[in-house]
């Protein structure tokens, strides 16, 4: 009897729709949600940043930091996919510190969404510019037409130090960039290298982070040739090179700015104009 009921249960499982286990709440659900492996209940708890309040750093709330320092930086702007709250802390912690790499795709797709928003924003700006220029000459209008869609040229992940890489087994920024890269077909080059091991950022104050970060990054000498080689293959060598720095969390932006500087220098050496932006998963 129990045998029969066991078989019946198995047969039922065969016919039932597949259940996926939600990465956030751990429950099984039939799942038709916009994100993979997340149930629709949890999907609504994700704190998306739809429209950033601060156009520089992409923060979802008013931002004193961007007005505070007037240091010149090659970084044009940052955009983040989500606000860094309890839900995201848990998610990123599970991924980064526990090493549950099942989250890679989910978090990568979140980053991809942020890229989509950035792209739309850039294209809108372009439209506005175009409207202004339209009156001037028809010719310039035609000339710009090809640039109607905005596209980044290169992704550069923020590196982690060698010791951390061995300990963790992966570089989260690089993995997220990998997902974005395969979604959008933008190449990713790990141009940067961490020159010294800065301790965990999460234990430091703002001032400490800022001073710590200067000169923490350099161009990987082994990648210079590859970069130069890659530059040769560009279709439109005169257009500015749009680089996107990829990272998981943007807190003060010191990491990203420290990464942007060597990239700017590298571009100057190679004689190309660059536009450096950054894309991060979460904005605290």
């Amino acid at each position, binding site marked *: 009897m129990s045998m029969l009921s066991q078989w019946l249960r198995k047969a039922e499982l065969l016919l039932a729709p597949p259940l996926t286990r939600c990465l956030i709440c751990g429950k099984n659900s039939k799942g038709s949600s916009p994100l993979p492996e997340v149930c629709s209940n949890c999907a609504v708890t994700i704190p998306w940043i739809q429209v950033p309040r601060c156009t520089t750093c992409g923060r979802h709330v008013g931002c004193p930091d961007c007005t505070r320092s007037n240091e010149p930086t090659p970084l044009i702007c940052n955009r983040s996919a989500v606000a860094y709250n309890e839900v995201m802390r848990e998610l990123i912690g599970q991924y980064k510190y*526990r*090493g*549950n*790499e*099942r989250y*890679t795709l989910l978090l990568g797709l979140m980053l991809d969404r942020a890229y989509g928003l950035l792209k739309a924003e850039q294209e809108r700006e372009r439209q506005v510019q175009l409207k202004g220029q339209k009156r001037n000459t028809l010719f310039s209008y035609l000339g710009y037409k090809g640039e109607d869609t905005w596209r980044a040229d290169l992704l550069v992940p923020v590196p982690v130090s060698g010791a951390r*890489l*061995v*300990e*963790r*087994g*992966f*570089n989260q920024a*690089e993995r997220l*960039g*990998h997902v974005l*890269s395969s979604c959008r077909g933008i190449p*990713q080059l*790990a141009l940067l290298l961490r020159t010294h091991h800065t301790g965990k950022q999460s234990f430091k104050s703002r001032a400490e982070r800022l001073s710590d970060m200067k000169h923490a990054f350099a161009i*990987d000498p*082994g*990648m210079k040739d590859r970069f130069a080689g890659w530059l040769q293959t560009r279709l439109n060598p005169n257009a500015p090179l749009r680089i996107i720095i990829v990272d998981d969390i943007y807190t003060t932006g010191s990491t990203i700015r420290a990464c942007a500087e060597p990239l700017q220098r590298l571009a100057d050496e190679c004689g190309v104009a660059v536009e450096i932006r950054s894309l991060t998963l979460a904005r605290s």
Partner: protein
Amino acid sequence: MKAATYAVECNGTWRVWISLAPIVDFCWWEGREEKFGGWSHNQGMERLVLLTLEMPLGWAVLFRDRFRSDKHMHTWSAREWSTYIEDILQAELKAEGDGNGNGNGNGYGYGNGDVIRYSGRLLTGISMWECEGNRWRLTGRGCNMGVSDDNRTDEGQAFLRSEQRKATNVTSFGDERTEVLKWNSNFRDRSDREEEIFLGERIENLALLARQAEQLVHGVSGRSLLEAELEALLLDQSPELCAPWRRAAQLAHLQGRLSIEAAVGEDARGGAARQGLRQLPLVAGALRAAAAWPPHLGFRRGFAPRRALPRCRRCGSAATARTPCAACGLSGCAYCEACLALGRSRACTLLLRSAATPAVQCTASSDPTVAARRWGLSAAQAGAAGAALAFLAERRQRSAVPSPEHSTVPGSKRSAVLGSKHSTVPNSKRSSVPGPERFLLWAVTGAGKTEMIFPLLEAVLGAGGRALVATPRRDVVLELAPRLGRAFPAESLAVLYGGSTERWVGARMTLATTHQLLRFYHSFDLVIIDELDAYPYHNDPMLAYAARQACKPDGCFIYLSATPPTDMQRQVKSGKLAHARVPVRFHGHPLPLPRHLAADPVRICLKRGALPKKLIQELQISLNRNAQIFLFVSRIAHIEGLLVLLRRRFPSVVIEGTSSQDAARGEKVMAFRDRSISLLVTTTILERGVTVPQSDVFILDADSSLFDEASLVQMAGRAGRSKDDPAGRVFFISPQWSRSQRGAIAQIRTMNRIARQKGYIRKESLQ
């Protein structure tokens, strides 16, 4: 991580070793004089082939385990060795190549190219050594052999040089800087002709290292630790070992006291399966041979068995996830998703294990009556504890019999009768299951299980053994710890739970939540598992595996449960599982028998907005007799609606509801214990653990499929716990009878009947 791998020929037999610090291995195989305790004497080492200084640890372990010595190996050149390695790791190399070919190759700067060229590089990493006195001579090297064509030789030279540089890195930790520099310069200054290196005084203080190895083994004995956990343990327990631990560990490994494994690897249970097969009759053996035959026919692709999934050696789960890994450079390095919470276990993570000393020869069996008096046990408790003690004692006799096979001893040697009449001895069959022996203490709810474990612990600790009490819940651990401390003031006690500060304390008595068992390996003589059938232990093969690993192979398990899982009940019935029952509560009154009230399901009542009349009447009776009421429901969603109806009906009574989703659950349970809440509507989360002196239990929708027999018995067990109010009232409220309800009532009846037969029931409650 990556590790060095080499093969050594001793007395004509080849063996492969993995090394965390190759310099230690060179010193070891040189052989030492007697005065160096902990170092080998001359072992007849003939030659050593250093295969590689950096192989992904997972592969190194696979290679080591699959390696078979061959008598022609001493004639082999580097080329043959590299072909042999490629052959053995064929499947892995192929999978790695496929992974890269699919375009999901990793984007790391390392690895990708390395792996594709790995097989080519194997050759150049190989070097062959012979030792005369304590002088090592290089007799052959990969890049010098045969590869005449093209630039591969150059590449090989470059690779060898980089390997050598890395070799110095591998060993460059600790304070023995000078020595490392010497080793370094030795490599750097060496021209191609000068192929001797001297290791005589390489490690300046061999005796010191031997002591460190001793200390390390002592610190990790009986544990199963990942590299990161070992580092944490050393930081906590012996910080002076933090720097040189790799060398110390390598020496201990060479001494055979520490095993080096990859945390995820080929099926760790293979051994057990093979043992089982050995006992099959002849025909089955022939069939098995036939089944093993086809691969030799060359139908490899079609007939070869599908490669088993790699398993986590720490928790036993299949590791399905594969990701590119920066630590070993492979693009498909497997990791285990089941035990992530204790640190990630991957195919290239180092897992160090050291079995504790062999199981103790226990003292002569202690007298159950004395024990009962000392621990204040009731007659029923004493009877069962006596049976368990007899089980332990009888095991002692058995282990005293020298036996070639440790874990499988014919059951005929077991004495037929145990101390107590109501225990059964399983015969012969059970010994076919290798590993620790099991004993079930089946004690009804409120029987006082905790008191019964004291005499058992006493017996094992008295014999110099190590004991573990594992319980599912943290609060039980915290509650039990001081009691154990008081009971055994002279013994060291480690209390382990998530976030405990005593994580790395070595003690003879360990009290832990079940997940902590993953960190032990063949450590305990006695493992007591409390509430075997409760979450999380029940239905979690990982924890069962962990418990098996934690117990010494000839140690034993004692399970405590009021409601053993059905398969265990079946084993009890068929006599395959030794057990003892405690059929009565400590106060000697029978268990309250549930009554059935026929009523509409809660769903309907809520819709109608009225509670069943019979339910209200019975609730009123309970409230009148001043009892606190547990009202169990099957669904969290019903709680709110019920609260409204109940509060409307009983406005003067304090009524609350709680569930797993309630943030204030802890406070509400506390308030219920303090009697400031009289009626608590809840789900199965409170089916165990919460004890209130005077309580009645109402179970709504008792026919729900969410309530199985065990949880009905447990819920019914909330009533009548106290000596002053032994006759609590229990009601199953449902439209119809179900199998679980009948089963639960039958189980309670059986226990009461056994108790009456044994004369455990007090006279006043018999009337």
